[in-house]
C-alpha cells in the first residue's frame, strides 16, 4: 500500500486554533506541531476539548486559526482520516461496502468505485485479517471486530495522518491492546502519523511518543509522557490528586485518596512508593 510521504519534519501545523460553540470558547488558541510518523496522545478530562480538536482538524466544526499541512495547504480527506468515537454502522451494509466508503475522497463528484478502489479495500481487509468478514453486515460485528473494520475504512482513505477519537473506549482490555497494537504496527509499516484522544493515561503514555494535555481548551503541556504525566500537573488539570507509578517500565496513573498529600516529585518506582507508604504509616 502506498502512502504519500510528507516532509520528514512536520506532518501538520496547528496555529492558534480556536473553536466556540454558541459563544463559549471550547478551544482557546491551540498551537501544535505534529511530527511525521509520531504518535501523539491527546489527554485531558472530559470536556477539555480533545474531540473538538480532532473534529476541528478535519473541518467538522467551524474554527478560527490555522491548520496547515507540513508541505503547506489546508488538509482534506486524503490527508487526514478520522476514526470517530462512536461510528455509525448502517443496517444492511456489508464490511467491504463500509470499507469502500473510505474511498469517497478518491472518487470524483459522480464516479463509482473503480477496480483499483476495490483492490485497495480488499488489500486492507486482508491485511487486517478481516478477509472472511467481507460479506458480513457491519451491524452483526462484535465491538472489537467493528473497531478493526473502522480502522480498515480509515486505512482505505490512504491518508498519511490518522486521527483516533477514543479508539478503545468501548473495548475490554484484550481488545484494547489488540486495536492499539494494530494501529502501532500500521504506523511503523506505513509511516503513518497518529493523533489519538485517549482516556486511560497509562495506555496513552505507553503508546504515545508525545502527550498533549488539554485543560479547558488550552494546552497545559506537550512533551514526552514522562514530562507530561507529572503528578502535580495531572492532579490540577483533572481536579483530583493522582499518583504516577512505574510498573514494569510503564507509567501507571492511579487516583489518590482525597486526603492524601502529594509532593511534587518526578515519577518514582512502585517499590519506592511502597516504601513511602510504609513510612507514612510509621509516622502516623
Amino acid at each position: 500500500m502506498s502512502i504519500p510521504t510528507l516532509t520528514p519534519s512536520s506532518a501538520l501545523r496547528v496555529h492558534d486554533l480556536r473553536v466556540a460553540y454558541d459563544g463559549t470558547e471550547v478551544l482557546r488558541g491551540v498551537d501544535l506541531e505534529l511530527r511525521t510518523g509520531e504518535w501523539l496522545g491527546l489527554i485531558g478530562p472530559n470536556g477539555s476539548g480533545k474531540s473538538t480538536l480532532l473534529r476541528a482538524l478535519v473541518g467538522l466544526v467551524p474554527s478560527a486559526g490555522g491548520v496547515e499541512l507540513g508541505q503547506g495547504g489546508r488538509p482534506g480527506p486524503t490527508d487526514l482520516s478520522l476514526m470517530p468515537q462512536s461510528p455509525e454502522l448502517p443496517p444492511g451494509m456489508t464490511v467491504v461496502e463500509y470499507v469502500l466508503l473510505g474511498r469517497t475522497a478518491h472518487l470524483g463528484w459522480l464516479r463509482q468505485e473503480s477496480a483499483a478502489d476495490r483492490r485497495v479495500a480488499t488489500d486492507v481487509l486482508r491485511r487486517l485479517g478481516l478477509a472472511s468478514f467481507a460479506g458480513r453486515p457491519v451491524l452483526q460485528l462484535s465491538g472489537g471486530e467493528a473497531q478493526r473494520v473502522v480502522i480498515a475504512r480509515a486505512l482505505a482513505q490512504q491518508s498519511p495522518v490518522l486521527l483516533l477519537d477514543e479508539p478503545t473506549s468501548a473495548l475490554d482490555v484484550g481488545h484494547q491492546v489488540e486495536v492499539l497494537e494494530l494501529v502501532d504496527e500500521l504506523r511503523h509499516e506505513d509511516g503513518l502519523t497518529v493523533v489519538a484522544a485517549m482516556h486511560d493515561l497509562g495506555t496513552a503514555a505507553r503508546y504515545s511518543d508525545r502527550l498533549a494535555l488539554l485543560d479547558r481548551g488550552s494546552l497545559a503541556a506537550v512533551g514526552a509522557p514522562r514530562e507530561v504525566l507529572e503528578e502535580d500537573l495531572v492532579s490540577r488539570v483533572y481536579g483530583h490528586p493522582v499518583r504516577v507509578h512505574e510498573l514494569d517500565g510503564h507509567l501507571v496513573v492511579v487516583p489518590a485518596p482525597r486526603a492524601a498529600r502529594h509532593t511534587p516529585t518526578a515519577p518514582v518506582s512502585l517499590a519506592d512508593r511502597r516504601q513511602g507508604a510504609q513510612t507514612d504509616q510509621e509516622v502516623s
Partner: protein
Amino acid sequence: MSTTYPPRTVDELDRAAERAFRLPAAAVLGSVAVLLLVGMVSVTQGAAGLPVEGVVRSLLDALPGVHLHQTLTDQQQAVLWQIRLPRTVLGALVGGSLAMAGAGYQGVFRNPLADPYLLGVSAGAGLGAVLALGFGLDLSWGPVDALPAAAFLGALVAVTASVVVARGSFRDPATLLLAGVAMAALFSATQTYAIQKLDESRSREVLSWLFGRLATNGWHPVVLLLPYVALAGVVLLLHARHLDVLRLGDDEARSLGLHPARSRLVVVAAATLLTASAVSVSGLIAFVGLVTPHVVRLLVGHSYRALVPLSALVGAAFLAFVDIGARTLAAPAELPVGVITAFVGAPFFCIVLWRGRYGA
C-alpha cells in the same frame, strides 16, 4: 503482515468486493419482466379488450426495421396507440418518478418515513390545482395546460418556501423537515378554504384531482413529463452513491470527503422536480413513493445504488398495475388511482411490517 490466507477466503473476499453496492442483475431483469407483463395486461384490458397477439404485432411493428402483418382493426389500433399505450406509459412514468423521489428523500433525510410529498409538494400542487380548476387561474405556457402548470408551480413554490424558512440550510435535515410540515399545513389550509368557496360541481372536480387521477389526453402529458423525468432521474441515479455515504451521518460523510449539504440540495432538487412534474399530470397519488423503496429494500438490501434504480422500475410496474384496476373495476366510471394505491399498498405494507422482516 505476511500471513497467508486460505484461497477459499480470498475468493469470498473478492466476490464480496465485486458485489459491493452492485445492482443485482437478477432483480433488474425480474422487475423489467414484471413491468413488461403489467404493461401488456394494461394495454389489452379496458372497456374493449384487445387481442394480445394483435397488440404484440402492432407494438413490434413500431420498432425500427420490423415489419409484421397487422391483425388489429383500425379502431383497435387507435385504442391501443391513442388511449391505452399513452395511459400505461404515463402510469409507469409517474409511478417510477414518485418511487425514485421517495427513495431519494428517504436517503437524504435518513428517515424511513420520508415520502415525496414531505416538503409541501402535495399541498402546493393541490393549491395550484384548486386555483386553476376552481378559480380559472391560467398559467398555461406553450404546450403546458393551465392545470399542470399551476400544480407544478404550486409544488415548487411550497418546497422553495420550506427551504427559505429553513434558511436555505441543507445542513440540518430536521429543520428542513419541520419547515416542510409548516408549509404543508399552511398550503393545505389555504387549499381547504378555497375549496369551500367553490360550487359543488367544481369542488367535486378538484377533489377527484386531489385523490389522484392519471391524465387521459393521449401522449401530451407523457411528452410533457419525459424531459423532467429523464433529467431529474439521471441526476438522482448519479447521486445514489452520495446517499450511501450519507448513511454514515453527516459528520462521517464529511470527514470522508462528501459535502452533505451540497448532496442534499441536489437530491432534494431532483426529487422535487420529479414529484412536481408527476403530480402535475396525475394529481396526488398516495403511498407509491413511501412504500416502494421499502419493498425494494426487502428484495435487494439497503444500498441506494440498487435502491434508486430498482425503486423506479418497481414503482412503475406498481402504478401501471393499480391503474388497470382504476380503469376497469368500476367501468365505465373511473376510480381515483390514488385511492387504489393506498387500498392495495397499505395492507401489503402492513403484512410486511407484521412479518417483521423489515430492517433485518
